[in-house]
Structure formats: structure tokens, C-alpha cells
């Protein structure tokens, strides 16, 4: 089981240049999606067959605030010219979609919200997701982003065996 973290307030453009550098769409993402994208890069960099489409890896993102930091930006734009580019990120699950698109993960993607990092609820939910017989591994992330400059961000790459 691999585990990675991104310290609160770290420079995300820096981390992007270090871990990816080849994906300009990164700069359109909201902070939640950037964090999810980078955590996944850190987990699967150098993995063999990395960009081969697969259905057997789930992406499960847990949070408390979800995409609220971006929602506030959208609400501000609403005052005169609502921004479609901001609106598309006003969903807590878009981060899972960005990870899926980048890595060609055609399996299950889900976003869950709970009141703080409840470890037993989180890992119970992860274990339950493996009831889908196709799922053999999962990117699991806790990303809580109350603003664009401070967060809790950690992720794991879990194999089915790890949960036995």
C-alpha cells in the first residue's frame, strides 16, 4: 500500500512541474482537482502500463468541504458574468473525473463527504467498494480544502489484497 501527502500550502505549480509537466489542462482545474491530480501522479508515476485504459482501478475521494472553495469563486462570478469554466468544478466528484481522464481509469469513480476524517467510515466504505468484482485496486484520497491556500491532502494506492 503506497501513501503520499501534499503539505498544506505547498506550491502546486511546483509540484506539477516536478511530477507531471505535460498536462496544460492542470491550470484550468480548481484546487481540489489539482490536489487529486497531483496525489495520483505521486502514487502512480513510473507504474508499468500506466496509461493503458483499465476498468479495474477505482477512484474514491473523501472530503468534508468538497468543492466549496471553488463554489465561492463561482458565486462571486455570478454577480455579473457567471463563469462556465468555474461552474463545471462546482461538483465534489469532478476531481475523480480529472484523475480518470488523465490516467484512463474507466472503472468506478465516486466522491463521498463526511464530517471530518472518520477513519473507520472511510476504510469501511473503501472495503465495500471492492464488492464490485471488477475492482482490483483503488486510488483513495482524503482531500479537505477549506480554501485555495490551505488543505489536508493525502492518498493511498490500495490493492484488493491489502484489505483482506
Amino acid at each position, binding site marked *: 500500500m503506497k501513501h503520499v501527502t501534499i503539505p498544506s500550502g505547498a506550491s502546486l505549480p511546483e509540484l506539477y512541474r516536478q511530477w507531471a509537466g505535460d498536462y496544460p489542462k492542470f491550470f484550468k482545474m480548481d484546487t481540489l482537482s489539482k490536489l487529486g491530480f497531483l496525489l495520483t501522479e505521486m502514487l502512480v508515476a513510473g507504474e508499468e502500463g500506466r496509461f493503458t485504459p483499465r476498468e479495474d482501478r477505482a477512484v474514491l475521494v473523501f472530503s468534508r468541504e468538497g468543492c466549496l472553495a471553488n463554489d465561492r469563486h*463561482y458565486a462571486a462570478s455570478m454577480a455579473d458574468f457567471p463563469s462556465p469554466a468555474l461552474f463545471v468544478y*462546482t461538483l465534489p466528484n469532478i476531481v475523480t473525473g480529472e484523475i480518470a481522464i488523465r490516467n484512463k481509469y474507466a472503472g468506478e469513480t465516486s466522491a*463521498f463527504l463526511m464530517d471530518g476524517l472518520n477513519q473507520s467510515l472511510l476504510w469501511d466504505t473503501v472495503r465495500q467498494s471492492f464488492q464490485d468484482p471488477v475492482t482490483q485496486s483503488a486510488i483513495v484520497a482524503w482531500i479537505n480544502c477549506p480554501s485555495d491556500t490551505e488543505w489536508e491532502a493525502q492518498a493511498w494506492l490500495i490493492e484488493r489484497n491489502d484489505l483482506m
Partner: protein
Amino acid sequence: MTKVYCIGCGVVTPVGNSPETVLAAVREGRTALRLYQDTPEPYMASLLSREGFSGPSFLEHIARQAAWSAIVAAGIDPAGPRVGLVLSTIKGNVEQIGQADVSLAASANRLAQALGVKTAPLVVSNACISGLAALLQGMRMIRSGDYDHVIVIGAEVQSRFIVTGFQSLKALSLEPCKPFDAARDGLNLGEAAAAMVLSATPHSAAEIYCSDSFPKNQFSATNAWELVSGAVRNDANHISGPSRTGEGSYNALRCVLKGVDPEELAFVNVHGTATRYNDQMEAIALNRAGLQNVPVNALKGVFGHTMGAAGILESILSMYACDAGIILPTQGFSQMGVDPAVNVSEQERKTDKMAFVKLLSGFGGVNGALLFRKGGAQ
């Protein structure tokens, strides 16, 4: 694999507050869809009346109402240690953004408290498939062996935030939407709450479906609706446009149809938002999955897109329709506008089959399918 049953339902919609009255409304072609002018640009929507309501959260109010109906129908004690709660909502209390804590987790906590649920609630927020994903989550919780019952609630209210957002995407139609129709030009927004109590046992302490429309003897212990299997799959293509080949939708269908003969299905109740892209994508997915002859229907011409409530509301109506031996009409459809075609109709049709698939898609490239089968039917 442990079987999972629905033992109680509750709904709050602009055309009725019980599954029976809503079913009758849909059969009569009624809808609350109308034009609203309270944003800079007008929009067509099906909204609930807030008359007489004065609490802090209309969303939590309707969610509570739907949940109570389901809990009473199921006859369970929500405070039991093996009763879980899953909430499906996409934007929750977002209309209060800037004035209050609008986190979905806080809403779930307050709901759990109001309903007397003691276990930690979970929010599933997976765009437009949330309701279906929440049902799948409830199924998994029961199959884990840790829960005997799970209350699954879906609820959504509309707001300037959501309306202006969809307007900026140019996704809305100013007319009642036309699923699969050649002239379809976008979706309508809707509000509703819907809840199911899921159970490891097929009968409830209260008498299920006990009403004048549904005589008791139709519903013995072996006759409850079973949630057989579900799957969520990502297109891995684009965050707001569906895959042109219906990749995720097809994969989700493939999963739930494993070992199932399409002949068994009364219908597939689809997403059918009436955008140019969604309906075309679903048509492709259905055909790829070998379902081109299975009757298809869509209910967003009645309720609009109720977002977090859709997966649960549309599934409840599908169960009740199947019990009544009918396939509900697809309001708004008149001329085939997708290629390959799908077996959709604006008329009510009859069926004697007792299984159906619920299909949905959402932003973030997500797609979900869930197979329902009447217990005792094979």
C-alpha cells in the same frame, strides 16, 4: 451474495407526496414544469412550493419528510445500532453560500439527528448519478454485514447558483424538455426528495405498499423489490460532455446485465435529460449493450432534472409502475431524434415483466446502472 430489498419508500414532489399519487399524476400526463423569471434570464423548472415554510433549510426539510415516509412504511426503528444513513445531494444548501455552513456533511449530520439515526451518515455526491450511487452504497453497506437497514435519501432544491450555472453552459431548454426527440434542445431543472429503506430481509414490520391501490395480498414476503446489482463506470473522456461512444454507460450496463437475459426486462428507465449529447450517447450505449428492443422510458419531462433526488425518485416510480403492470410514458417525446433508435414512446404501455434497469449519467464522466427485480421473480 446477501440479497437487498426495498421495504419502504417516500417522495416529496411538485405533483404529489406519496408514490401512489405521483404515479397517478405521471399517468395523467401532469407536470409542474413552468417558466420562472426570477433570474436575469428565464428558465423552465418544476419547483416545490415553499409556502408556509420558515425553517433554516428547505432542502433538509423535504429530505426529512421523504425519509420519514419511507421509515414509517418500512416500520423500522431508525435509532437501531445497525441502521445506516446515506444522503445523496449535489449542491445541498448552496443557496445560503456565504451566509451559513453549506457543507453537505453538516446537512447529513443534522438529518441523522432529526431522524434519530445513531450511526455516522455518509454523503454520496457523484453528480447526476448520486441517487443511484447512494442506493448502491446502501446495498454494499447491507452486504458488508454491518447493517440490517440503510435509509437512502436523495434531495435537491434549485437556486440562482444552479440555474445561472446551467445557463452559462447553455444546457437548458426554455420549453418542457423533449427526451430523445428530434427537436430536443436541453434540460429543465427540478426539485424533489425521495427516500428508500433498504433491508436484508424482504418484509417490513409495517405492511409494505399497504394502500387501496395496492391490495395487501399482492405483497407477501417473497414479493418485495430486490436491488440485485449496480455498477458505476467513468468514461475517462471529458468532465462535462458524455463519451461519444457511450463508453461508461455501456460498461455499467454490461456489469449489471451479466447473466441476465434482456427479455426479462420490462424497461430501462434512462437519464434522458433531453440535451443533444446525453440522449444520443444513451442510445448508443443501449444498442451496444443489446437493449435496442427493450422498452425505454424517461421521466424528466415530468419532474425536470432533480439531480441528487433523480436516481431514487425515478427508481421508486419504476417499481410502482412495474407493480401496476405498466411502462410509464415518456412525456415530451414525439419524434425519434437519436440514431440508432431506442424503443421509447409517449404513450403508456403494458408489461407483465418484473425487472428493470435504472440508468443515469453525470458530470465528471460518471455513469451508473442498477438492476431491480421483484423478489420471487426469476
